[in-house]
Structures are given as structure tokens and as C-alpha cells.
């Protein structure tokens, strides 16, 4: 397998991360993904929910599969609401079940729903990122459509040549979504008011974003920092809320052909990233200042010290 040349300077005083664990999910077994692993999310008990192919697999915090169930259509996004209901974003619909895949029901809204590639909850709102409509749909808990976000601009939506739209909402109810074709993360209030954006095209400068369309996915820390994944070469970047680069997890850990790598952060601030080619979930932990591990460990199974 070839890898991307990385000529960028990496004299960094930034946060460093090392690979803690690889959750190997590729295969033809019942709790494995044969063709695609597209989304991950945490349940309230810190179990990891993964969606791909036409199934959901739930892993315990050590990465061991706990249970799995089939979905009606291929899943593109997954989220667990505060009540423990699991939402799976699909093409034209959202499949909802309890956290064991039971009591399944399908939520459709043909007037609005296209390809749902991210789901989030905030207060009484359910937010669906729609990669076909290039906007975010806001519904109330009773599934009544409230409004769209991100479409009131000259481009009539987010600019996503990579055909994937991610989102995350912080504790203050601020919506963050990457507009990858504009090399930025855009912020909105949930009433649709645009608050601004961070990020720019950076070329070889790692503090910006390169390629046609980056960043593709994002996740938020509790303190306002955010982490994004980028493609070509695949990488994770961690930023302050103002957009200053704090850390990078570089290409060597991932298959060079990865794109639209979903990302999630647990309560211990471990970063979980989907390798969309090898169908693994890689778990990274910050290296403490006194530790001597390299910033990017080889993708082998290691345990925390």
C-alpha cells in the first residue's frame, strides 16, 4: 500500500497523541463489517456504536463486540439520544430502535430527508445533516420539521464535493458543521443564525486545510476544542475553538485512501477515528508531556501505560 508523501514541517510543540487500540471490525462475521464502516457514536454508558454495511455493531469500552443488529438500508450515520434510543441515518430515512436493536421504527420525511450522514441532539431538537440537500434539518422530539440550517447563502447549502456532511452541537447549543469545499468549519445557532467560521485553505501549512474538500468530519471536546478528520493524506487535527492548531495525528496510522473518516471523542478525551478502508476504529490518547512515545504510533495494538 502506498502512502502520501508528507513534506510538511512537523517541529511541533503541539499536543501529541499515540495509538491506544485498534478495534478491528473488518470481516464477514456477524459483528464485523465486510464492505463499509461509516459512522460511530457513543452511548451514555460509553459503549461504542458503529454503523456500516446494513448493520449496527456495539462495542464495549475495550473494543469487544457486545451485540449487533441488521438495518433496513445501509447506514451512513449513527447517534444515541439521551434516552438510549439509537438513530441510524440512511438514504431517505432514519431508523430508530432501542439500544439492542428492538422496537424498530422508520422515520421518513420525503419532503426534506435526503442522505442522512450525521445526527445530533440538543435540548428538544434533533438535527440531521443531509448530504443530498447540503443542509441541516432541525426537528423537534416529536419529529416535526422546524427549519433548515446552512442553505441561506449563495451556494444554497454547504459546499461538500466529498458528498458527506457532518455536524456536532456543543453544550451551549452551537452547531458546528464542516463546509469542506470552503475549507472551514461553520457555526450556527440552532435558530439558523450564522455565527461565523474557522479554518482556511492552507496548502502545505498544517494549520489550514488542503485538497479540494477538507475537513470532512468533526467532533467536539467539552471545553470548546474540536477535532476534525481530513483526507488525502488522511489525518486528524485538533484545534482550539478559535481555530489554532493544537495537535495532529498523521497519515501513517491510516490507510492512504481513507476519506470521510467519522470521529468521536469519549469522556476521557480519547479520540476514536474510523479507518474507512481497513474498516477499523483507531483509538488515540494524548501523550503526557513527560512521556516519550512518538506522536504517531504505528497502527499496532498497544495498551495505555
Amino acid at each position, binding site marked *: 500500500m*502506498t*502512502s*502520501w*508523501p508528507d*513534506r510538511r514541517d512537523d517541529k511541533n510543540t503541539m499536543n501529541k497523541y499515540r495509538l491506544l487500540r485498534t478495534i478491528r471490525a473488518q470481516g464477514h462475521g456477524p459483528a464485523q463489517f465486510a464492505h463499509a464502516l461509516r459512522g460511530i457514536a457513543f452511548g451514555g454508558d460509553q459503549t461504542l456504536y458503529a454503523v456500516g454495511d446494513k448493520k449496527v455493531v456495539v462495542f464495549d469500552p475495550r473494543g469487544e463486540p457486545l451485540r449487533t443488529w441488521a438495518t433496513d438500508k445501509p447506514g451512513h450515520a449513527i447517534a444515541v439520544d439521551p434516552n438510549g434510543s439509537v438513530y441510524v441515518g440512511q438514504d431517505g430515512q432514519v431508523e430508530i430502535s432501542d439500544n439492542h436493536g428492538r422496537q424498530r421504527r422508520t422515520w421518513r420525511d420525503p419532503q426534506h430527508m435526503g442522505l442522512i450522514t450525521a445526527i445530533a441532539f440538543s435540548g428538544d431538537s434533533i438535527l440531521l445533516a443531509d448530504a443530498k440537500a447540503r443542509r441541516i434539518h432541525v426537528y423537534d422530539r416529536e419529529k416535526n420539521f422546524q427549519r433548515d440550517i446552512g442553505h441561506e*447563502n*449563495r*451556494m444554497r447549502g454547504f*459546499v461538500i*464535493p466529498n458528498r458527506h456532511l457532518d455536524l456536532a452541537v456543543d453544550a451551549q447549543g452551537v452547531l458546528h458543521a464542516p463546509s469542506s*469545499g*470552503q*475549507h*472551514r468549519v461553520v457555526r450556527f445557532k440552532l435558530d439558523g443564525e450564522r455565527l461565523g467560521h474557522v479554518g*482556511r*485553505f*492552507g*496548502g*502545505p*501549512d498544517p494549520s*489550514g486545510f*488542503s*485538497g*479540494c*474538500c477538507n475537513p470532512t468530519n468533526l467532533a467536539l471536546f467539552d471545553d470548546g476544542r474540536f477535532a476534525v478528520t481530513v*483526507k*488525502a*493524506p*488522511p489525518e486528524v487535527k485538533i484545534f482550539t475553538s478559535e481555530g489554532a492548531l493544537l495537535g495532529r495525528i498523521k497519515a501513517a496510522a491510516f490507510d*492512504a*485512501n*481513507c*476519506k470521510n473518516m467519522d470521529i468521536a471523542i469519549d469522556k476521557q478525551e480519547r479520540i476514536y477515528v474510523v479507518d474507512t478502508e481497513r474498516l477499523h476504529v483507531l483509538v488515540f490518547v494524548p501523550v503526557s508531556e513527560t512521556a516519550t512515545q512518538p506522536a504517531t504510533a504505528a497502527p499496532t495494538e498497544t495498551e495505555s501505560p
Partner: protein
Amino acid sequence: MSEVMNRRELLEKAGRGVTLLGLGGLAAYLLSKSDAEGAWLIDPSKCINSRLGAVGIPACERCADSCVLEFSAVRAVNDHAKCGRCYICPAYFDIRSPVNAEGLPSKKLCPRDAIERKPIGWVDPYDPANNYYEYIIDETRCNGCGKCVMGCKEPAGLSSIRLEVRYDLCVDCNRCSIALACPHEAYDRRPIAPGDKQDEHA
């Protein structure tokens, strides 16, 4: 007597010559007939510049270098239905070059400057990223080097650009020199119904 023999020799030689010319003409006709029913095609799934999975490597430039023509018969073709019309196109720009004052890469990728970047509609002066851009390949400049094809390939781009043999330029060599030089056997001679070459190009 010797004069008669000379005349006979002359007539014999002339007869042989006419026969040979006729046979040669017939062979050339048959050969051209067989050529008209086949054409050299590039298989994008074999060409290293467009084949998915092969990333982080320099573009293969054999199509530009190996053609018997001084200016190759191969061209890059952008499938506009597939193109993302990106603000920063990795096939147009050298995305590893330093960023200029306008926030764009300072260098272009095409060594022959054969791609034109045109904004679709008016450009937002405060935010040029607030726009789509059309990328048009100038075939009078493109020599099929494949750099843009490699630049546009997924996951960096959307793989909307591929290489094609232009039939109106191709001289239909019986043994195509690019096919011989291609390290990935991406060239194939495929049967094509008479008249289809023109139709395809049109």
C-alpha cells in the same frame, strides 16, 4: 535477337511490377479495412493515473512521451457531470505549493497550462470560496501527461478526469507505441463498428 529478349525481359518485369503493386494495394486495403474496425482505448481502471487505490505516487507520463506523434494523440477529459466544481481543484492547482496573497495555491499543476478555471456566475469579492468553478481542458495544449488525472483522483478529488485517445489524431499504428510502453497494460485495441470513431469523437 538480343533486342527481342530485352523487350521480353522488360515486359516480364513490368508485368511482375504491376502484379506486385496490385498485391501491395490489396494488402494495404485489407489492413486499412481491419484498422477501421478497431481502435486504441485506455482502460481507466488499469491506467495508474486514474486507477483507484494507487495514491501518493507521481503521475505516469508515458501517454505524452511514447506516442509516435510529436504531440500525443492522448488528451485529458473532464467529465463535467462528475466534477465537483471545487474552489480549490487539486487537478488545476499544485495544492502543495505555498498559498499566495489571494489565499490560493501559488502554482498550477498542469505543466502546459492547459486547464482553464472559470467562475460560474459572479465572484463574491469578499469570499471567493462562495462560488463554484468550472474547469475546462484546452485540447490544443493538453498532451495527455496525466498529472491532472492523478491530482483529481479519489480520495483527493472526485476522479472526474481521465485520459482518452483522440481518434481524429491517432494514426492507428498497428502496434501502438504507447500501448507497448504502458507499464500497466491499460491500452487495449477494441473492435469498433465502422463510422463509430467519428461518432464517438463528435
